[in-house]
């Protein structure tokens, strides 16, 4: 089943086409990689899907529903979640306080229940806390639970951001350059982690990445972009062999 379908998407910035007539789909349960040189429009594409930008043209469907003009805060409620290239954590909030709100957006208690501290309110709070703890434990941050996000190491911050994105219980997660600034060993661990979360949370993943060994390793299919356009889409094997991709991006044939 196609979980996400993008049709003829277009976005201009001051006359420059950042995303130019892009169409693709993502199958449920697959890992969909997006590669391309800087400025190719990959992050813009994510911003369009996650509603931060509105496209000039084109349509986006999620599970058959048109989500093109949905305000960005609604997307996690549909089941789409994302991370950011330059990590946007709530720096002076604790690790726990970074995760909790992402769980609590789906709570249903209202302000009066909160003020009068009704039983159902306290149950919901407790439930959210337990779920946050589970997630934090899965990502190995339990000991840092009460530390502010900004005091974590780079790798921990990356994990926390991923944990926060998962806390909204997405079915589709958009991951923007998780391997930036990581060494080959860390990249390897990251690949394992992405595979693990995919299984555990039964996710569909769209991922932007520059690290060839990471993206080739984990992706089921890869879309190559350049100058806002799609060059080709195919399995890692097909991409590695494709003439246009080699010319525009890889520069040389990979193994």
């Amino acid at each position, binding site marked *: 089943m196609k979980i996400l379908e993008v049709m003829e998407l277009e976005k201009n910035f*001051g006359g420059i086409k950042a995303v130019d007539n892009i169409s693709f789909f993502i199958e449920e349960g697959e890992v969909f990689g997006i590669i391309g040189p*800087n*400025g190719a429009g990959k992050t813009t594409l994510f911003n369009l899907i996650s509603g931060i930008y509105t496209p000039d043209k084109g349509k986006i469907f999620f599970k058959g529903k048109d989500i093109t003009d949905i305000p960005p805060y609604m997307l996690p409620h549909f089941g789409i979640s994302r991370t950011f290239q330059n990590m946007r954590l709530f720096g002076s909030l604790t690790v726990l306080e970074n995760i909790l709100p992402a769980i609590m957006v789906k709570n249903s208690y209202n302000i009066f229940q909160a003020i009068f501290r009704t039983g159902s309110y306290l149950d919901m709070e407790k439930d959210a806390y337990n779920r946050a703890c589970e997630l934090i434990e899965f990502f190995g941050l339990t000991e840092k639970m009460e530390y502010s996000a900004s005091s974590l190491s780079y790798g921990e911050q990356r994990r926390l951001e991923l944990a926060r994105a998962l806390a909204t219980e997405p079915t589709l997660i958009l991951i923007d350059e998780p391997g930036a600034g990581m060494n*080959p060993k860390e990249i390897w661990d990251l690949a394992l982690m992405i595979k693990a979360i995919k299984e555990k949370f039964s996710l569909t993943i769209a991922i932007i990445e520059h*690290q060839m060994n990471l993206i080739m390793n984990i992706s089921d299919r890869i879309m190559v972009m350049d100058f806002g356009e799609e060059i080709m889409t195919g399995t890692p094997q097909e991409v590695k062999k494709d003439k246009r991709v080699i010319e525009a991006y890889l520069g040389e044939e*990979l193994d």
Partner: protein
Amino acid sequence: MNNIEGNDFLLRVDNVTVKYGNIPALRGVSLYIDRGEMISVIGANGAGKTTLLKTISGLLKPVQGNIRFGSLNIENLRPDRVVKKGIVMVPEGRKIFPDLTVKENLELGAYTIKDRTIKKELFELVLSTFPRLKERLKQHGGTLSGGEQQMLAMGRALMGNPKLLLLDEPSMGLSPIFTREIFSLIELVRKEKNISIIIVEQNAHMALEHSQRTYILENGEIIMEGFSSDLKHNQRVIEAYLGV
């Protein structure tokens, strides 16, 4: 300080550590460059390449180590002072001023040059090196194509009459054809003006092809260095960066 052949180093980076907040971006990095030499620094995204150039050009201050340019310690100079000493950087992503005309962009490059005749000579030189810019002097910088912007960025840097040019990912976002053209222009500049060049690249092929020596940066540390012609055949480099 002398190198093996007994010449003076043009620039010597010695045991430099740079941190963003608490996170180290460079850890005890050392390198040198001779007069007229072109060296390259390659490494993955986030390895610290841009940080290295920003530190040399004064945008970032090291918490440890020093940088000598000729006989001068420059690690604590402001970026504009570093430019005055003769080190000019072409930043990643070119950073053309889109609202200034091409001519104004070039004039800005010569901001530190007081002498009008020198300025004029430099202007002529840049236009003869990059004839494409000549046709576009009155256009706004923002209207140029990516390749033209890279030329303008390099032309703008040359207007500062540098002794040492720092190029941050000149091939970024360019098509292979333009990448080749830019690299041959870089060669031309180095030979004709005898300018030393440090080039930082993700495109390891081009960098190794065109530089004499190469440093490999990983996770903020230099893990390997040597003549580019040797490194090209090094098994580890091939696996990690050339991917053949």
